[in-house]
C-alpha cells in the first residue's frame, strides 16, 4: 500500500548536498558541527501492507513525526521514493497531491488541529467542504462519521467545549469523513490522560476492525505500539533500527538500543510459545492436546502447569517442539533474561 525507499529528510542550509556524499555517513553531532544540518530522517525504507497497522516508534527527536509528514509531503523530503497505492508521491504535481490528501490519505494530529471557530459538525465536514461537496450532503456524511466515533449529539458544540478525548474523536472523525484508504496518526493520544488514552486505543482497534483501513501510527509509547501494531518500526536518530512484529522486537531485538527499549516489557504477554519451546527429547511422551505455536505464553500457563507431561507445540500438523514448566517459569519470572531466539 505504502512503499518508502531510501527516504531522507535533511533540515538546514543547502540540505541537498548531504545525501549521497560522505557527509551522509557522519554521526548527527558531527553533521551538525560540519554543515549545520540535521538529518531528521536518514535512509529509511519500509513497506506497509494493505489493511495493516504499521507503528513507527521512537523517542522524541528520533524523526518519526518528520517521517510521517514526508509521506504526504507536508514536509518535502530531501531525497528518496514514496509510493502510495502504486503511485509515486514525489512525482505528483500540487493538484494531484491535494487530491491524494483529500481522498486517499488522512491524518490525525497530536494536538488535534481543530478549527476553533467552527462547530464540531463543520470541523468534520471541512475536508468535504473544500472538495466542493454541497452542504446538506457533507453534513449528512459528517453526522454519520460522528456517530461512528461515538459523538452523536455533539454536532453543534465547539471544540473548546469538549474534553481532550472528545476533541481527538472529532479529529478522528474528520480524518474518516473523506473515506480515505490510509490513515496517518501522529502521536494522537500523547496529549491525553492515561485512562482516556486506553479508551481511544480500544476505539482505534475497533475502528480498524470495522472499517479495515491501512493505519500508520506514530508513537513514543512502547505499550501503545505493542497493543496496536501488526508491525513496528523502531526509529533512532532518523534511521530505522528494526522493523518487525511485536514479538520479534521483544524476542529478537536487533541491537542493544531496541533491547533496552523492550527490557521492561513482560515477555509472557508478548512472546508466543515458539520463542521458549525446546526440542523434544527422544521418546518423550506428550499431552494429547497440542498447543498452537502462536499461543502467547501467558495464555498457556494454566495448561502447562496443570499437566504432568510436556505439551507439544505445533504449526498446523507439524510439530515444532515441546514445552513444560521448566521453559515456562523463567519467561514468567524474569524480564531480563535473554530469551533464546
Amino acid at each position, binding site marked *: 500500500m505504502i512503499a518508502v525507499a531510501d527516504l531522507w529528510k535533511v533540515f538546514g542550509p543547502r540540505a541537498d548536498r548531504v545525501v549521497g556524499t560522505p557527509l551522509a555517513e557522519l554521526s548527527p553531532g558531527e553533521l551538525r558541527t560540519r554543515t549545520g544540518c540535521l538529518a531528521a530522517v536518514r535512509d529509511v525504507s519500509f513497506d506497509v501492507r494493505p489493511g495493516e497497522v504499521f507503528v513507527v516508534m521512537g523517542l*522524541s527527536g528520533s524523526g518519526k*513525526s518528520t517521517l510521517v509528514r514526508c509521506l504526504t509531503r*507536508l514536509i518535502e523530503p530531501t531525497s528518496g521514493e514514496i509510493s502510495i497505492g502504486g503511485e509515486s508521491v514525489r512525482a505528483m504535481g500540487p493538484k494531484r497531491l491535494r487530491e491524494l*490528501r*483529500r481522498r486517499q490519505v488522512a491524518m490525525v494530529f*497530536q494536538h488535534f*488541529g481543530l*478549527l476553533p471557530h467552527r462547530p464540531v459538525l463543520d470541523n468534520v465536514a471541512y475536508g468535504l467542504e473544500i472538495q466542493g461537496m454541497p452542504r446538506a450532503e457533507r453534513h449528512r456524511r459528517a453526522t454519520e462519521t460522528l456517530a461512528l466515533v461515538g459523538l452523536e449529539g455533539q454536532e453543534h458544540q465547539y471544540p473548546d*467545549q469538549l474534553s481532550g478525548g472528545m476533541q481527538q474523536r472529532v479529529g478522528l472523525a474528520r480524518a474518516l469523513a473523506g473515506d480515505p484508504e490510509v490513515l*496517518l496518526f501522529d502521536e494522537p493520544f500523547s496529549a491525553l490522560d492515561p485512562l482516556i488514552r486506553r479508551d481511544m486505543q480500544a476505539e482505534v482497534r475497533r475502528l480498524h476492525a470495522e472499517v479495515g483501513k491501512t493505519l500508520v501510527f506514530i508513537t513514543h509509547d512502547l505499550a501503545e505500539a505493542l497493543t496496536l501494531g501488526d508491525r513496528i518500526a523502531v526509529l533512532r536518530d532518523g534511521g530505522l533500527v528494526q522493523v518487525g512484529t511485536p514479538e520479534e522486537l521483544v524476542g529478537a531485538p536487533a541491537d542493544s538500543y531496541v533491547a533496552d527499549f523492550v527490557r521492561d516489557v513482560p515477555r509472557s504477554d508478548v512472546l508466543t510459545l515458539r520463542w521458549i519451546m525446546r526440542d523434544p527429547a527422544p521418546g518423550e511422551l506428550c499431552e494429547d492436546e497440542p498447543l498452537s505455536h502462536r499461543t502467547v505464553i501467558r495464555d498457556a500457563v494454566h495448561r502447562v502447569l496443570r499437566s504432568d507431561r510436556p505439551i507439544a507445540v505445533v504449526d498446523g500438523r507439524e510439530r515444532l517442539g515441546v514445552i513444560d514448566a521448566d521453559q515456562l517459569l523463567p519467561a514468567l519470572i524474569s524480564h531480563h533474561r535473554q530469551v533464546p531466539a
Partner: protein
Amino acid sequence: MTATVPPPPVLQPGGRVLTAASDTAVPGRRGWLRSRTVAAVLAAVTVVAYLVFRTDGAADSSDAAAFRFFDSVRDWVDANRDTSPVFLYGLNYVRLGVRLLVDGVHAALTGLGFAGLVAAVAAIGAVLAGWRTGLLALGGFLAFGVLGLWEQSVDTLVLTVSAVLLSVLIGVPLGILAARVRWVGATLRPVLDVMQIMPTFAYLAPMTLLFLIGEPAAVIATMIYAVPATIRITALGIGEVSPTAVEAATALGSTRWQLLSKVRLPMARTTIALAVNQTIMLALSMVVITALIDAPGLGQNIVSALQRVNVGAAFDAGLAIVILAVVLDRITTNAARRTRVHRTDQQRRWRWIGVGVALVAAVLISVIKVNPEDLPGYSFAAPVNDLVGWIELHWYDATEGLKNGISAGVLDPIETVLVTTPWWLFVAAVAAFGTLISGWRAAVIAAPAAAGIAGLGLWQHSMQTLATVLVAIVLTMALGVAIGVFCARHDRLAAGIRPLLDAAQTMPSFVYLLPAVALFGASRFTAIVAAVIFAVPPVVRLVERGLRDVPPTVVEAALSAGSTPRQLLWKVQLPMARGGLLLAANQGIVMVLAMVVVGGLVGAGALGYDVAAGFSQRELFGQGLAAGLAIVLLGIVLDRLTQGFHHSKGPRR
C-alpha cells in the same frame, strides 16, 4: 516534541506590537564592571571636551541652507504641480481619489441627517457590540448636538472613517503578506519601526507639499500614521494562528486560498478586529491634529482656542473628541470581544433579523428631519473658564512656583548645556554612549541621525526640544515607576486604576494639552506636564506588568529567605523586571517626544512651533519642513539609544 512557547507579544496603545524583551540573562559581573569603568571614563571625557570646546550657543539662523533647499523644492513642486508626470499621472490622481472617498463618506453620513446618523450609529453599536454599547453610542452622538458641535463632529468622523477605510484596505492585505511572505515581513519591519516613532507632526509637512492642504492631505497623513498598527496587528494575528490547525487543513488537501479564507482569516479575526480598533483610535487622534493643515472638524476648534489660550472654548471640542473616542472604542472593542462568542444557528438567525430591523429603523428615522440646533444646547465654556480663573487666582503661587522652579532650576541649565555643546561633540557622545548602551548597530543609526540634526540648521531649537523631552521623561519615569510599583503591590488599587489607564489610552493626544494649559498657561512647562500626563499611563502598565511577570516561585523563595518587602522590591522584583522597565522607558520617550512637539502650539516653542508656523506662513515653509525632519531624527536618536537596551543585552535568539 515539546517546544518552548515564546512569551506572547503585547499589544500597545498606538498599535505597537511589542515582543517581550529578552531580559533573562544578566551580564556577567566582569563585563558589568568593565562597562561601568568605560562609562565613567567616557562621561569624564565628554564633560572635559564640553568645558573646553563649548560654544556660545548662537541662535538658529532663519536662512539655513536646508531651509533654502526645502523652499526651492516647494517652489519646484508649486511650479510643476500641473505639468510634471509624477503629479499629473500619480499624486494628483491619489489626491482626487481620496477626495472622492471623503466626499462619498461625507455624503453618506450627512445624507442620513442628524436623527438618521444618530440612529444608525446606535444600531451599529447595538448589533455589533450589544445594547449597552448601542445606548452609549446614542447618548454620545446626541451629546454632539447638545454641545453645538454636530457639524464639526461629523467632519471629524468623516475624515476618521475615510482614513480607516484606506488603512484597512491597504493594511490588512499587507499584514497578511508580512506574516506569510518572509521577505515582505523583513522589508516592512524596519519601515514600520521608523513610522511608529515618528511624532504626528512630522507627517504633516510632506503631505502638504505633495497634496496641498485640506482633507485629502489630512486623510493620507492620518492613513500613514495609522496603517503601521493595522499591518502589525494583522500580521501578528495571522502569525499566531495555530500551526497545527493549518497543518491539519493542509493534510486534508486545502488550497492556499482555502487555507487563508477558511482557516487563517477566521482564526485571526479577533486580532484583526483589534487591529481595526487600534487603527480607529490612532486615526482619530491624528485627524484632530490635521486641523493644522486645514482639515475641518473638532481639531479646528481646539487649535484656535489653544492659540488664544482659551481653555473653556477648547473644552467643549475636547469633550466631543473624548466622547467620539469612547464610542468608537467601545463599539470596536466589544465587537472584537464578541467574535469569540460561539453562536448557534438560531442565534445567528436572530442576529440577522436584528440587523435587518435596525437598518430599516435607521432608514425610517433618517426621514425625520431634526435640526441639531433645535436641541437644548449646553456649553461648558463659561464654567470651565470660571474654574480656570479660580485656579489662576487661588493656586497661582503654587503653579507658578512649580513652573518657574522646574524651568529655572532644571530645564534652563540642561538646555544651556545642550545648546552650547558643539554639534560634533554631541554626535560623538551619541555614538559612544549608543555603542555602550545599545550596541554598535544602534549607534550606527543614531550617530548619523544626530549629525543630520546639526546639518538641518536648527541646532538651538532641536536642543531646546531635547532638553524638554529629557526633563519630561525623567518625570514620567519617576511617576510611572512609582505608580506601577504601587499597582503591582496593591491589587485593589490596580483594579481601581485600570479603567482610568484604559480610558487614558483611548484619548487623542491633543486632549491632554487642555488640563496642562488650564493649570500652567502657555509655557514650556505646559508641554512637559501634558507629555507626562500623556506618557505615564503606558509606563505604569508596562512597569506593573513587568513586576507581575516576576515568577511567583522566585518571590516565594525570596520571602522564605526572610526578605523584607523593600528588599524584595529592590533586590528581586525590580532587577527581574528590568526588561519591562526598559521597554517602558523606550515607549515613554517616544510618546514624550510626540507630545512635547505638539506642545509647541502652547508655548513650548522650538521644533514644534517651527513645524506649525511652516503651515501658516509661506516664507517659513522650508524651516517648518526642516523642523519636521529634525523631529524625526531626534526621535530616531532617542529610540535607538533606549531600544538597544533589551536588544544588546540578554541572549540573542
